[in-house]
């Protein structure tokens, strides 16, 4: 039973994982991650990569929505920009894949700042609407800039090349996607150990006080949006290398809602929440696929494939509503409760 932990230096106090137990579990988890690709079949590897990409994107959105309190419905648009940038660079110039990812991030970041400049000056609500607009405009660009983007048929992306090896299946991509996601999570966690992250939270909680303390609201809101868009762009690039195809329809508004749901379900303002939320939201459609496959739909004249998409849409929305009403702090809070039970056992919480 662990009630408290004594630290002997300030640095130790602010460490990310501050107890021997946590560090041990971290090592165990890392080892498990390394062993996983050798024991899992293709389907689970595919899912793992997808979860990792979604975690990367969700952590970006969490920085903006969970920590800074600005709702964005444009995550899919920025991912699309990153994906297309990566696709175009890879197809036309065959530039190194890490460089492409960074470029994708930058393009998305620039677009984000463009969207953010007018809409962040007033209420946060306007950003939400502006991001919907950004999605519509992005879709317009993707479909009409045919010379660059291949129009409605989109682009086929050649596999990423790392040290001469072509990353053309889930197994190989796993070893690239998971570490990149890990780095992005670490970056996000680091942000909140410094003044930048604290400023974001201050803006969410009480922006007038934040101003009085010297935090220029527009500057920091833009920064939060820029970082979040950068993350989305990189995740979009990973998406392009993973699915090997990008079309204007790959990044619909419902995908933005998916990521917003992931942030809410996982727990707003929590790095662990980004991981849990993304994993949960990625696995739920798979679960639904299974369930729908079991149901005797033919008897009712239904078709499993047809109802899957609308049911998914309903579930995304339902997750948002249910979690906001009943568990606003998300899965991360549930996790914390379980941990408390273990810490304080045999005492009750």
């Amino acid at each position: 039973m662990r009630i408290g932990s004594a630290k002997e230096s300030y640095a130790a106090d602010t460490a990310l994982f501050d107890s021997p137990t946590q560090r041990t579990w971290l090592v165990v988890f890392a080892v498990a991650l390394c062993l996983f690709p050798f024991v899992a079949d293709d389907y689970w590897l595919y899912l793992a990569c997808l979860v990792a990409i979604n975690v990367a994107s969700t952590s970006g959105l969490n920085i903006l929505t969970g920590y800074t309190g600005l709702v964005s419905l444009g995550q899919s648009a920025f991912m699309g920009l990153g994906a297309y940038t990566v696709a175009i660079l890879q197809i036309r110039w065959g530039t190194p894949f890490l460089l492409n990812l960074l470029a994708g991030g930058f393009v998305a970041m620039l677009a984000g700042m463009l969207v953010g400049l007018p809409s962040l000056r007033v209420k946060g609500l306007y950003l939400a609407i502006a991001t919907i607009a950004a999605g519509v405009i992005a879709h317009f660009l993707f479909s009409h800039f045919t010379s660059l983007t291949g129009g409605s048929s989109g682009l086929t992306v050649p596999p990423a090349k790392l040290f001469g090896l072509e990353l053309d299946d889930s197994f190989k991509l796993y070893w690239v996607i998971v570490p990149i996601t890990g780095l992005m999570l670490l970056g996000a966690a680091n942000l909140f150990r410094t003044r930048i992250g604290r400023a974001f939270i201050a803006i969410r909680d009480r922006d007038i006080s934040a101003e009085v303390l010297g935090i220029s609201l527009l500057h920091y809101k833009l920064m939060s949006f820029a970082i979040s868009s950068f993350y989305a762009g990189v995740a979009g690039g990973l998406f392009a290398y993973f699915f090997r195809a990008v079309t204007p329809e790959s990044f619909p508004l419902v995908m933005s809602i998916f990521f917003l749901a992931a942030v809410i379900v996982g727990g707003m303002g929590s790095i662990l929440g980004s991981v849990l939320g993304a994993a949960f939201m990625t696995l739920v459609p798979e679960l639904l696929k299974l369930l729908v496959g079991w149901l005797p739909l033919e008897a009712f004249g239904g078709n499993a494939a047809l109802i899957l998409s609308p049911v998914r849409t309903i579930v995304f929305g339902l997750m948002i509503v249910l979690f906001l009403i009943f568990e606003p702090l998300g899965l991360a809070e549930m996790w914390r409760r379980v941990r408390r039970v273990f810490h304080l056992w045999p005492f009750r919480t």
Partner: protein
Amino acid sequence: MNIDWWLLFEISLAGLGTGGLYALTGLAFVMIYKATRVVNIAIGEMLMIGAYIFFAFSAGMGLPIWLAIPGALLVCGAFGALVERTMIRPMLGESPISSFMVTVGLSSILVGVVELVWTADQQRLPEFLPTKPIEIGQAFVSPKIFYGFWIAVLLITTVLLVFRFWRGGVALRATASDQAAAYSMGINVPRVFSLAWVVAAMIAGVAGIVVGSIGGISSAMGIFGLSVLVVVIFGGLDSVLGALVGGLFVGLVEALTGFYIGGEYKILATFTLLVLILVVRPYGLFGTHEIERL
């Protein structure tokens, strides 16, 4: 350049006609915002549900129009009350961001439900409006848009009058102004919330039926709501007058853009308008600039 004035007039009339419907839906939005301080991004989807319920009653169940329309509106009202009670009321003390996100979830649920029950394909509503084109001078106006506009005008006027003189209307305005004071005056504030959502849902339902009659219904109808959002931002989130003026203006701009530049550029024009208003007058033409008490 030879401007065909009658053509311009014709396009403008069509734009104003659509504008009337934007104004009507904008009114529903403003009502919800004024009474419950919730930014309802699902307003377009509520419009869509209204159209589909009418579709279910008239085409699905074969009810005559004079039954289907009131029936659909009643269901819309009940739906509005249900949403308010189950999704909005629990979020009362939370931040406005939370209730906003709930409406995002709601919009997703509604789109999914429509796609599930009726598929994503476009459908046609049964005809119930006269079909003879209306002639004004040398300009022709589509009869559906013409009658749709006047339905909108009639409904807006009715709602405004009712809320001016009816007790419930006064209660609504009082609650919009100051919730705590309204409570202490004996106004049943939760009931006012329900009323606002019920009426707004019904108004959106009417708009949905009309819009659906003009352009058909589909699960993507919610995009109408996007233009409505621009309308209310343009006019001011809590201003009824703003919704009216904004609706007509946006309708006009869209129609002119659609004809002279191209149909696919309509939405681009709307969003350019959005950016302009955010830069020049972020609180909208008639919106109140909230001075925060420190």
